[in-house]
């Protein structure tokens, strides 16, 4: 089971986030970081280990609960879930390219192009 860490780009101004702030961003409840800049959460595809581990650790919610939550949001026209990438390698590439992005990758992939928040 991969150990998953929450990361932003090393070029991002964000150095810390509370767990509530983090989960609010991923659930689409807020669209900006505490400093006012735009937040761009990115998910891994449904059914992937890192995704399920991320939501279990940060929000204490199962994959089905997250799906039910987004069903409610999508089917009430209130928003859309974050875009998805296929795995941690793709996630890291996306975050390297975009200073506003926030996501989660395998701990083993961490290097100095990304900053670990959790």
């Amino acid at each position, binding site marked *: 089971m991969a150990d998953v860490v929450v990361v932003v780009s090393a070029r991002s101004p964000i150095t810390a986030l509370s767990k509530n702030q983090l989960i609010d961003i991923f659930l689409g409840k807020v669209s900006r970081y505490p400093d006012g800049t735009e937040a761009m959460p990115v998910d891994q595809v449904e059914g992937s280990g890192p995704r399920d581990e991320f939501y279990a650790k940060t929000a204490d919610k199962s994959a089905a609960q997250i799906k039910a939550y987004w069903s*409610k949001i999508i089917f*009430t*026209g209130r928003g*859309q879930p974050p875009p998805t990438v296929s795995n941690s390698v*793709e996630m890291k590439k*996306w975050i390297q390219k975009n200073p506003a992005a926030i996501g989660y990758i395998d701990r083993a992939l961490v290097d100095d192009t990304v900053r670990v928040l959790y």
Partner: protein
Amino acid sequence: MNNAHSLRTAIALIAVMTAWCRFDSAAADADSAKSMFSFNAFGTLGVVHSSEDNADFTSSTFKPNGAGFSHEWSADVDSRVGGQVTANITPRLSAVLQLIAEQNYANSYRPEVEWANIKYEFTPDVSVRVGRIELPLFLVSDSRKVGYANPWVRPPGEVYDVVPITNNDGIDISYRVHMGGLSSTLGAAYGRTYRLDFPAGSIADIQDLHGLFSRTEYGAALFNLSYVAAHISLRPVSALLEDFREFGPAGEAIADRYELEQKLATIVSAGASYDPGKWFATAEWTEFDGHSYLGVDTGWYVSGGYRIAKFTPYLTYSALTVASTSAAGLNAAALPAGEAGTAYALNVGLNELLATRPIQRTVSAGTRWDFAKSFDFKLQFDHTRLGHGSAGTLINVQPGYQSGGTVNLCSAAIDFVF
């Protein structure tokens, strides 16, 4: 019916907006998930059995039949399929079209437009929508038809059937405020006309709808407060009430007081839910005043559940009561013999009409099983105790029906989302 017109208008609007903004294919990444159109679908396949053979149980007062008298096992009560297309035309402009196929008041599954609206976001916190928009009367009003999004087979009828209307043709504006960890969305809606032509020939007309909504979230807690006022009419007018008009000013006053003709109906509702992950608890209360023979309905429920592996067993207690009213009616004693008899009969008829109100309490126990990705299965038992002399929310009441008893329901459903 407005639906065909609204559907054409919505599609025309979306086509026009799309033609205005060219889709920039250069922005599409190899891994891009941000294309302009997205399609989602949801549905429920459910069956219900009712122990009451002399009346039907349904999930909406708009349905013409259900489980019990019409069908031993009814698949019409909860089954439906919905499809939604969302177009993100620019970062601030989006459009949504949602169609739902379910048993409607004409006993057909013809797809109807649930939503067709354009949304413009001035900022991420301030937006306006025009078209056919969801009406967030209760906590899960706007997702009451998406079985997968809710723990129960259906939201408790004692609250959700008080007003079964789920959308509004008009405009709404919403404003979101953030204060620390608290996020509050305030909304105001205005709708013009909404008209239902029932197959039996009667027409329900809802005009001049005004609504105020407030939704506050704090971590795992959610609070909802809403108020809607509209002018409603039900035609043809009641023959009984029209007969009162033969009796001079006193009769006219009685007819005006109780008839449903351009009557101001108001509904207030408050709800709260807490869902930290392993368990949930939710409660709602609502009060509807029809300012007519419809009286004042008060409905509420409390519900809770616990998640164990892929199962979520839950328990709900709900109640619907109506303030008891009676009418003195006409002063029959002051009339000559021939008219007095008629007046007396009308008074009795009026009081019978006022007394025929939905009063019931339900205990409901069930479980949800998330057996596969995008699917869930639910099994639910409802035990309803009807008020004295009341048929509750049952329809198609047959001559042999004995009011004030109990009804037991068994419901099984499979929900899915794509």
